[in-house]
């Protein structure tokens, strides 16, 4: 393949985002352009797969292959893409509703398979696309259209989930900090196996513009004391109250699905040669 020199704007598609002015997702999009350019990934070898939601509109704005699928199914669709064409860099994108509510059942199975793809969750703690209902990460203080008298359940903690599921890479970033987001996207893509990036990306319309300041004020970088190979450290980060740690929370070296499947294939080849006629013989009786 000829050498190409991609700049971030080469990844811009010609579709204008429908996002509200000031939406956090613009930051994610810009960070993604930069990350893809830094990695010099050819357009045709990247596939961005999403569900449905404001955040899930993202694939259409990137000049790569994209799949804006159905609500909650970013992960299974992304896995299908990756397994069918392993050369592809696959990035799954979901909102907090998409990924933790309707799509919640796919997350543990994605993690246990440890397929080599990157999952970016654009968490705005609200259902943006449907105009402001409670999401799984909505906090008690946040008014929403479906909690007129306050919330009657606790929010879900996506990092804890990823840890319990055995995800082999877990990081957190903030779309208000594009530089950091670029860095995290790159590391997530480079991680061999499943990588989960919890990306705080404010909804200015249904949660509010103050989210940017709030998150910025609570953000701290994971320092050197943090050991990303330790589940205990990672859990502690997940439990933090009053501050939000940014960076790589957890990282582990685990065999990928692809590697294990390769091994299974070898065993299979020992059991049979992949010749259709030979297979047919098992069913054939030539009296």
């Amino acid at each position, binding site marked *: 393949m000829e050498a190409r020199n991609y700049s971030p704007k080469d990844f811009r*598609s010609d*579709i204008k985002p*429908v996002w509200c002015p000031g939406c956090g997702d613009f930051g994610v999009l810009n960070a993604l352009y930069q990350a893809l350019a830094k990695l010099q990934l*050819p*357009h*045709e*070898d*990247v*596939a961005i*797969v999403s569900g*449905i939601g404001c955040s899930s*509109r993202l*694939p*259409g704005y990137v*000049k*790569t*292959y*994209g*799949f*804006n*699928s*159905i609500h909650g*199914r970013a*992960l*299974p*669709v*992304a*896995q*299908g*893409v*990756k*397994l*069918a*064409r392993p*050369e*592809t860099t696959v990035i799954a994108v979901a909102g907090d509703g998409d990924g933790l509510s309707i799509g919640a*059942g*796919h997350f*543990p*199975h994605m993690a246990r*398979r440890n397929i080599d793809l990157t999952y970016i969750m654009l968490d705005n703690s609200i259902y943006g696309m449907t105009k402001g209902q409670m999401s799984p990460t909505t906090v008690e203080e946040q008014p929403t259209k479906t909690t007129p008298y306050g919330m009657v359940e606790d929010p879900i903690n996506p990092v804890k989930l990823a840890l319990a599921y055995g995800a082999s890479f877990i990081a957190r970033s903030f779309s208000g900090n594009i530089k950091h987001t670029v860095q995290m996207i790159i590391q997530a893509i480079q991680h061999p196996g499943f990588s989960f990036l919890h990306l705080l990306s404010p909804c200015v319309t249904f949660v509010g513009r103050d989210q940017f300041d709030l998150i910025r004020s609570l953000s701290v970088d994971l320092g050197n004391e943090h050991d990303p190979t330790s589940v205990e450290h990672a859990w502690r980060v997940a439990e933090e109250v009053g501050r939000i740690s940014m960076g790589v929370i957890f990282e582990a070296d685990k065999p990928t699905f692809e590697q294990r*499947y390769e091994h*299974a*294939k070898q*065993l*299979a*080849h020992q*059991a*049979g*040669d*992949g010749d*259709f006629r030979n*297979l*047919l013989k098992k*069913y*054939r*009786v*030539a*009296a």
Partner: protein
Amino acid sequence: MKPQDLVLAIVGSGGEGVASAGEVLVQAAANEGIYSMLVRSYGPQIRGGETLAQIRLSKKQVRSQGDYLDALFVLSWANFFRFSGEIFVKDGGMVFYDEEDTPPENLNLGKDIQIIPVPFARATKELTGDTRSKNILALGFISGLFNLPDGGFNQAIRDRFGKKGEDVLESNFNAFRRGREMALAVPQHMELDWQVDEKKPVLILTGNDAVSLGSLYAGVKFFSGYPITPASEIMEWMARELPKFDGVFVQTEDEIAAVTMAIGASFAGAKAMTATSGPGLSLMTEAIGLSTMAELPLVIVNVQRGGPSTGIPTKTSQSDLLHAVYGGHGNLPRVVLAPLDSQDAIEIAIRAFYLAEKYQVPVIVLTDQFLGQRVEVVPEVDFSQFDPLVIQRQWPAEADLQDYKRFRLTEDGISPISAPGIANGMYTAAGIEHDEKGKPTSNAELHEKMTAKRQRKLDTLLSNEDNLIWEYGDRHAKIGILTWGSNAGVVREVVDHLRLKEVRIAAMAPRQLMPLPTETIQAFVDRVDTLLVVELAEEQFLTYLRSQIQLPENTRVLKRAGAAPFTIHEILHALEEENGKWKQETIPQKTFEVI
């Protein structure tokens, strides 16, 4: 009793090897060029419950399970009674039971039935020290009783038990021989002639095997699925075989993941499929629409079982028809195919991939528990005849990739499809309505055009492709039977039987249900005087036909909710009632003459 058509059944508990005896019998017969069909039934207990193996043997290809038993072999009466209402011994038939299990006093199985004790268990124990080979001893008894050639059995027993060590093999051989000897000693023993003129190669397979083989030949490279009775065997088959053929197999967390993962794989360029049964198909409904909207090839095999809801997982039905053709929100063009038997299932599976790839649509293959799980012996299939159907996806040409329009509005509705890896073919697939380039839109006019484009592909298909329809019988028939799917076998036998009686009758079954080849069907129903629609559902096929063609006013329907497949008698009776053209007594209780 005519030698070429023998129906027998073995009934016992799960542990007694009833099913496996049935399988060995089919294999043994096939070794001698004898056709057969084996239907295995189980009670509700997960394991160790009652088991029934019903086998029909014939020198001609067997098309249905057989209505009445010529002979029944009861290993235990308690288990037999669990199947009451499901199996019937022919008047004058024979019942052999294990002498250790005395039949109940008030036993009444029918007219003139001989009920004969046989020491199956005792003889086995005497011979081998335990009763493990009792099933094979019974098989030996059966072979002797009906004079079935023993060479085939020797081979079949060796194939089955050879790998389990010399000891096991030996005791089974001994048991078989002992059973055969015992049979030769009973007066019921018959000198039937099983000699086949010309032994032609055959395949022994279930409908689930057939669909799997066809799919593999068609080039499936990705299977994602979730277990469900009675479709799990397809999944297990793929788990075993796909890795050998460098395909990918994934057991997913549910059916929604299964179908969406397959859609993802299809987007990436692979021929992808999943297999399920009713509840799973219902769960896949939303995603089928995604396949339609994103115009991504997809093959879904649905092995029907009793419904609605969990229904009767282990029994057959044709009640997913309306869902397959009309289910799903929105205007949702899709293709639905339905094979008639295992042989046909191979071809239909291949065609499913052909149509999915060519027209970029979801294709649902509807089979059922009866077809999917019965063991059938069919003439060998020459797979190379299907090579023209094994196509590659039509990747975009260079010209297409200048300002590439994934969803170009073409005359035939088909647009050049790209996939990751193709430079300048980038686009975003979406379940959202979109313009030619894939950009989301909510414009009414564009929606109109795109809806029409997607619909148009089915019209193109209907006019360009083979007419997938089965027609059988008298070209100038006065009586017509319209049916679909696995009913075709029994209907064919009815037609054969009546034609020998000079009844002018013909049958038709569309193998492509959506888009339906309406012209051919309309011509057929217009041609006949009397039309009987036969289906294993609550008038779903009738309803569907009504919505697609003009049915004659006097159309009659033979329908049942399902659970058991139709018998020849049921259909003959239905015809008789409607016609009065032949009398009840012309219907023999058993053994049909077949062309």
